C-alpha cells in the first residue's frame, strides 16, 4: 500500500512538511525534487495555465504507474498554477521507499513526466514588457523517452 498525495493549485507548499511525512513512513529512503522559478534574462513573473479536469486525472495515473514500477511507500506530487515570481516554488516530487534506487528513480521519472506530459503551460513576462509562452524543449522529451 502506497500513500499518495497529489495537489494542484495556487497555494505555496512546504517541502519540509512533505519530507517529514515521507520520512515517517519508515522506508529508510526519501528522494525529492523541487522546481523553483528562475530569475535572469529580465524575467519578472510567470503564469502557469493548466487544464484542470485533465491535470488531476493524469497525475493520478502517472503516480499509479510509478507505484507499479517501483516498490514505493509514499509519493507526493505538488504542482502550482497561476502567477509566480522568481524564487517561488513551482513543483515538488517526493518519494519514499525501502530501496534507495527506487526512491531516486521514481522521483526522476515523475518529474520528467510532469515536464513533458502534464497539461501545464508557462507564460513568462519580462521587465521590458515582453510576454511569451515558453516553448517545449526537445531535451525534455528525450528525458522522458528513457523511461520507455
Amino acid at each position, binding site marked *: 500500500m502506497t500513500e499518495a498525495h497529489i495537489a494542484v493549485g495556487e497555494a505555496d507548499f512546504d517541502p519540509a512538511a512533505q519530507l517529514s511525512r515521507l520520512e515517517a513512513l519508515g522506508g529508510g529512503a526519501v528522494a525529492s525534487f523541487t*522546481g523553483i522559478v528562475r530569475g535572469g534574462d529580465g524575467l519578472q513573473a510567470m503564469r*502557469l*495555465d*493548466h*487544464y484542470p*479536469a*485533465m491535470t488531476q*486525472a*493524469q497525475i493520478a495515473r502517472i503516480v499509479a504507474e510509478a507505484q507499479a514500477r517501483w516498490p514505493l511507500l509514499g509519493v507526493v506530487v505538488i*504542482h502550482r498554477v497561476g502567477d509566480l515570481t522568481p524564487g517561488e516554488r*513551482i*513543483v515538488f516530487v517526493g518519494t519514499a521507499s525501502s530501496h534507495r534506487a527506487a526512491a531516486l528513480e521514481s522521483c526522476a521519472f515523475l*518529474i520528467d513526466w*510532469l*515536464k*513533458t*506530459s*502534464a*497539461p*501545464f*503551460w*508557462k*507564460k513568462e513576462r519580462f521587465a521590458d514588457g515582453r510576454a511569451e*509562452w*515558453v*516553448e*517545449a524543449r526537445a531535451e*525534455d522529451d528525450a528525458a522522458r523517452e528513457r523511461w520507455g
Partner: protein
Amino acid sequence: MVALDILYFAWVREGVGKDGETIDHPGAEMTVAELIGQLAERGGGYAQAFAETGRLRAALDQNFVSLDTKLGEARELALFPPVTGG
C-alpha cells in the same frame, strides 16, 4: 443534436480569444486535424491560432491523442501547444 465541447489553452486560447465553446458534434468519423481545418477556415484569430498544426497538440475526453485521431464518441476536445510544466 449531440454537442462537442472544445477547450483552448495557452496561446491557442489567446489566439482564438476565448477559453472554449460548444459546437454541434461534427460526427464520429471526423479527425481532430479535419476539425482544426474547419476552425481555421473561420478566419481571424482562428486562422492565426490554427495556422501551423505541427505546433498543436490535442486531448479527447482528457486523454492526449494524435491529430489524426477520429473524434468518435468524445464529448470534449482540447487544443493546445506542447506542454511546458514542471
